[in-house]
């Protein structure tokens, strides 16, 4: 019983990460019908930029070297316990999310927009190109090795390991943080898209780009925004991923990227709530499969779930019946 609970909590944690990344795939696909293969690299960049930010915010020596010496009093606070740690995390998310979001907008502007009226294969290849470029850029200019996601002294960024014990299962602080943050971000995004004027413009653009333009929507700005939001959320997931598993590497985006894309397809690609549902579902199924069947088979099982869903509901769980827009 407690093993079941443990695996479920692990699954929700993993699912929160998948959902955050899946949103980026689904937002872009919903508007452009483009599978943004470079999105997994936004997750990876988030991991790296986040690590740098965390180090600068927590390590007086490094901050001094980089000319951020003035941060010392703030660092003292950030290093002083749970509240400080959470605030440091918030700052890290804001900085990394914004930077990676800008990278996302740059890829849109220079790699996808020029190809917007080209055959659909062209932007797909452009996406793969960006993915290879970004991985190799990190490999060459940062490191080809696994980097530990830890403070200068090698300890974890999280000050307290266990948050609480539930039915005899220890729930870690990281898990609580990941679950709470991902759900908060998902709800915030959902509200933004459903209720605000800009959110409505995004939905209109996804449904009929020309008609949205005729209503006065600046379609290019809406697309740019989708390319900011997706990567920013992906960056948050990348940082969490680094902290949760303890290290990062230049190719860390690939598997979570494929899984999150799978989650988006399971939920119904193009459908925001579908991506959230698909993310959590996949995370939980994968964890349970890994715990009760075999760890080695969890990827296989994830893809079996995909195939079963696609056979039963080709458009995904919350997707439209398959109507391929041309």
């Amino acid at each position: 019983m407690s093993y079941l609970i443990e695996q479920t909590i692990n699954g929700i944690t993993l699912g929160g990460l998948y959902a955050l990344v899946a949103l980026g795939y689904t937002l872009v696909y919903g508007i452009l019908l483009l599978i943004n293969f470079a999105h997994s690299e936004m997750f990876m960049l988030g991991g790296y930029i986040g690590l740098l930010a965390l180090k600068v915010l927590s390590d007086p020596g490094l901050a001094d070297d980089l000319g951020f010496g003035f941060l010392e009093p703030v660092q003292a606070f950030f290093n002083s316990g749970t509240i400080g740690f959470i605030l440091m995390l918030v700052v890290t998310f804001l900085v990394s999310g914004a930077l990676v979001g800008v990278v996302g907008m740059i890829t849109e502007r220079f790699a996808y927009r020029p190809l917007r009226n080209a055959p659909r294969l062209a932007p797909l290849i452009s996406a793969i190109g960006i993915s290879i470029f970004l991985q190799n850029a990190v490999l060459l200019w940062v490191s080809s090795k696994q980097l530990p996601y830890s403070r200068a002294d090698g300890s974890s960024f999280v000050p307290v390991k266990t948050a609480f014990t539930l039915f005899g299962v220890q729930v870690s602080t990281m898990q609580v943080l990941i679950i709470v943050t991902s759900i908060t971000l998902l709800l915030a995004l959902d509200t933004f898209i459903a209720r605000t004027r800009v959110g409505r413009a995004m939905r209109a653009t996804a449904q009929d780009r020309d008609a949205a333009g005729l209503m006065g929507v600046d379609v290019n700005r809406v697309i740019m925004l989708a390319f900011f939001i997706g990567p920013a959320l992906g960056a948050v997931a990348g940082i969490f991923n680094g902290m949760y598993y303890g290290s990062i590497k230049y190719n860390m985006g690939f598997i979570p990227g494929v899984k999150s894309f799978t989650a988006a397809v399971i939920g119904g690609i193009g459908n925001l709530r579908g991506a959230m549902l698909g993310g959590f579902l996949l995370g939980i199924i994968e964890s349970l499969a890994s715990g009760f069947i075999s760890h080695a088979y969890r990827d296989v099982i994830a893809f079996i779930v995909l195939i079963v869903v696609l056979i039963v509901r080709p458009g995904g769980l919350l997707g439209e019946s398959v109507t391929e827009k041309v």
Partner: protein
Amino acid sequence: MTTPQPVLSVEGIHSFYGRIEALKGISLHVDEGEIVTLIGANGAGKSTTINTISGLVTPKMGSVKLFGETISGLRVNIVASKGVVQVPEGRRIFSRMTVLENLEMGAYLRKDKAEFAGDIKRVFELFPRLAERRSQKGGTLSGGEQQMLAMGRALMAKPRLLMLDEPSMGLAPVVVDLIFETIERLNSEGMTILLIEQNAAKALTVANRGYVLEVGKVVLEGSGRELLTNERVRKAYLGEE
């Protein structure tokens, strides 16, 4: 003597789809308070003409002017912000949004939030069917209701020039009558309208003037009455022998 500035003047536009020249030098104008109609066979270039005016298609040559200001070459959302509003062919409502949200999209660029409620009321007064269905998704409306919604959405933008592309296409006669009555009513209240129609008889009856398009060129123009009695128009577009 000052001649009044036309609301819209299209001067010798050539528009292309790839290498296909869909418009081969179209010129036309619409004056304040007029209903002007464009008629022509399928593929004559009617939709391309209004899409060029709206900025969805950019002309290779020629210009489009709104109250004397050149608007050709501007992006579609900028043209919309100047009050050029289109009810597109096939309605193109947002099918996964409610009726109310569709109307809100029509008012997307409006700054005067205070007048919004009044304008919605006005649309519901023109099309009471929409009021009953305000929370229904656009895609679940009937064809006629979708056309009403497309027109209501356009009116929410407070157009200075309203362009309608085949608003009666595929609709039952009662709904066609309602659409034409609405067009006349809006016009009698001062709205300037450019109307594309397959139903040439009806269009020429309500229009002040009309243009006949054939393969990307204007081949005839005149008042509604002149065109209605024109031999060539009667044969080609009014189905008479």
